């Protein structure tokens, strides 16, 4: 049998898992591992400029491809720098394997140089974690880590490896396990037939049905079964921020996003529904508004692979534990035996059309050459024909990108929904490009968020990631300012940078990228086209937009789903 050191076993195990890209940053505790990487050519290592960005890259890679992302970070500060990235992936159920170096076993607990209890620090934000205690266990631990990260409700798994476990002089028999089974972990895949039957009976009897689609519907072939099911029923579909694209946003049955910044028609349809079919969604507080007033007449059917997500916030009348893909497939089969009266939602659709006619996403175009942020997103949509991968950071620009760029494909819209991590967009876009080289990837960001991981412009140069950065520059932390405008009498406490913003064009040029500043509406479309013509270059579009703009609709705090501000002066 082949004899390998711990470091070589780790890299060989990753190869066996089909990994060809790792995002990471070396350091003392990982030097044996980095040497093992150097001595092989199946796995490419992307050297980042900050470990947080490495995790976001792996996360963007995973969300775009459906495959697990892999991160390598050294002990101590390297490990703690990954925390925000891990928490981001945990909240959005993204499969990651994060491998951290640890000080040598005999030093653990002695406050050694660059020692941190990574298992302890990461415990609340991982699906599971492993500390390697015997080098020979490395292949089995890696096998388990990938299995846990990718099965059931996906999530990040941390593997912490003390330096002596990778010592090149200690060699062991290497055989990668073909399969793994764990007595304590057997995620449910198929929904219970009785629950499927109950669900379908309730669905066909509904008069005012809404399909409420979340991020769980982005996985596998779920979107195909979803579209088929929804079209057969002629039911309206509302999507969460994480669900956008799992059902085509330009489809006539799509009501757009629901929730805090959801559309008038999506939130009204939810509030007035008699049956809600929740598909891989978790009734987040950014969706429900005040749970006491949530959809008072609705019977809730809830499909989720994670039993703990069901009836956590809103009690489900018909819970179905199982993967969205499998359950939707079964629901379609169950529907075969039913006669569907396509006319039965006629009145319901008539009502929905009247809500749609409110045209809640229309916005005042502004005077003269002022660029409205919504208009910039529309320009992006036009220039990319609606086909780009779009990543975003967090804030107003994120909501504009969610509302004004209708996504038609799953995995096309990639953002930090649960944790709301500023600094996510650029590294995530790089990860998308790593997963799908040659694709068009736009990072919609703001001048606040982009500065949280702007150092990765350097990584983009090194590995040629031609991200198109669409910076909606309004000189404010826009969403903070919006809340201060609406709830704090316009007192803008620490939400502006005064005059300290960098000249972004010069900044990106110093990294040998292309920068384009746009101040005038007349220049917007031409500049956007020019940006996307430069397919092989990173282009930073510094678009100066109206700082006074707010994101609407916006739910009124503590109200029901349909209590919304529709502009600065109108509310429902």
């Amino acid at each position, binding site marked *: 049998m082949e004899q390998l050191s711990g470091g070589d076993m780790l890299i060989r195990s990753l190869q066996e898992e089909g990994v060809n890209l790792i995002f990471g940053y070396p350091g003392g505790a990982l030097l044996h591992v980095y040497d093992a990487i150097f001595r092989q050519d199946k796995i490419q290592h992307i050297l980042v400029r900050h470990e947080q960005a490495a995790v976001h890259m792996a996360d963007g890679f995973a969300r775009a491809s459906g495959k697990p992302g892999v991160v390598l970070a050294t002990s101590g500060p390297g490990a703690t720098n990954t925390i925000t990235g891990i928490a981001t992936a945990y909240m959005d159920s993204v499969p990651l394997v994060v491998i951290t170096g640890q000080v040598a076993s005999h030093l653990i607990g002695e406050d050694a140089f660059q020692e941190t209890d990574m*298992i*302890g620090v990461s*415990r*609340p934000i991982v*699906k*599971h*974690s492993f*500390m390697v*205690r015997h080098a020979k266990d490395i292949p089995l631990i890696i096998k388990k880590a990938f299995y*846990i990260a990718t099965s059931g409700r996906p999530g990040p798994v941390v593997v912490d490896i003390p330096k002596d476990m990778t010592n090149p002089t200690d060699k062991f028999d290497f055989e990668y396990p073909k399969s793994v089974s*764990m*007595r*304590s*972990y057997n995620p449910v895949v198929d929904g219970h037939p009785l629950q499927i039957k109950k669900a379908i009976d309730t669905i066909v009897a509904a008069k005012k049905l809404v399909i409420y689609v979340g991020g769980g519907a982005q996985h596998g072939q779920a979107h195909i079964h979803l579209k088929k099911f929804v079209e057969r029923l002629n039911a309206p579909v509302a999507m969460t921020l994480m669900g956008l694209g799992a059902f085509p946003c330009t489809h006539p049955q799509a009501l757009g996003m629901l929730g805090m910044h959801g559309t008038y028609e999506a939130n009204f349809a939810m509030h007035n529904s008699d049956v809600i079919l929740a598909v891989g969604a978790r009734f987040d507080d950014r969706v429900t508004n005040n749970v006491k007033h949530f959809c008072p007449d609705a019977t809730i059917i809830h499909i989720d692979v*994670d*039993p*703990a997500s069901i*009836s*956590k916030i809103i*009690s489900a009348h018909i819970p179905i534990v199982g993967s969205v893909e499998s359950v939707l497939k079964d629901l379609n089969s169950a529907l075969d035996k039913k006669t569907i009266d396509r006319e039965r939602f006629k009145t319901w659709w008539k009502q929905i059309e009247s809500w749609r006619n409110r045209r809640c996403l229309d916005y005042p175009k502004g005077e003269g050459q002022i660029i409205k942020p919504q208009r910039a997103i529309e320009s992006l949509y036009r220039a990319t024909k609606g086909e780009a991968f779009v990543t975003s950071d967090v804030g107003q620009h994120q909501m504009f990108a969610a509302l004004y760029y209708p996504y038609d494909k799953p995995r096309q819209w990639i953002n930090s929904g649960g944790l709301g991590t500023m600094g996510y967009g650029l590294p995530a876009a790089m990860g998308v490009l790593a997963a799908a080289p040659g694709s068009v990837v736009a990072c919609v960001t703001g001048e606040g968020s982009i500065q949280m991981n702007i150092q990765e412009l350097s990584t983009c140069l090194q590995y040629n990631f031609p991200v198109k950065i669409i910076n909606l520059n309004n000189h404010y932390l826009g969403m903070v300012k919006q809340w201060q405008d609406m709830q704090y009498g316009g007192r803008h406490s620490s939400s502006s940078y005064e005059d300290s913003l960098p000249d972004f064009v010069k900044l990106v040029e110093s990294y040998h990228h292309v920068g384009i500043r746009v101040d005038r509406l007349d220049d917007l479309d031409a500049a956007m086209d020019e940006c996307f013509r430069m397919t092989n270059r990173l282009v930073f579009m510094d678009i100066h937009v109206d700082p006074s703009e707010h994101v609407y609709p916006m739910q009124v705090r503590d109200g029901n789903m349909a209590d919304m501000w529709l502009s600065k002066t109108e509310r429902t």
Partner: protein
Amino acid sequence: MRRIISVLLENEAGALSRVVGLFSQRNYNIETLTVAPTEDPTLSRMTITTSGSNHVIEQITKQLNKLIDVVKLADLTEGTHIERELMLVKIRAVDSERAEIKRTVDIFRGQIVDVHPQMYTIQLVGTTEKLDAFIESVGAALVLEVVRSGVSGIARGARTLSLVPNPVRVSS
């Protein structure tokens, strides 16, 4: 409502901290927690007493089940069960107090396990209420030190919480 949750847990380093962390992270209440290895050295058995609404208890059991290290669990309070707690208590016992305390210990079927001219060390086993009642009978003023093990529990009858399949299984 007070609940007793029994958990079979992988006997792995860090497993305990995952359970304890879950309770603090999700703002659940822990009243007592006991844990020790079982006859199968790869498994630990944990008993947690907690309280909360039915909704909270449902979440606790679901979230515990979600932990990879949790193999099986059961809410013992869903059926008839036996619960026991061990208490070691030092009680001031001087002069005439000594006889009275000895009588109380006998009534509660406790044992005096250490004797000192001014105090007794008493061992008592029973339900939480019984141990509370003992302290109350003796009078808090005489109690010098109390150590309690926390509750250990087991289902009555044929139900077992173990890896081995059995005819009447406790919900897992």
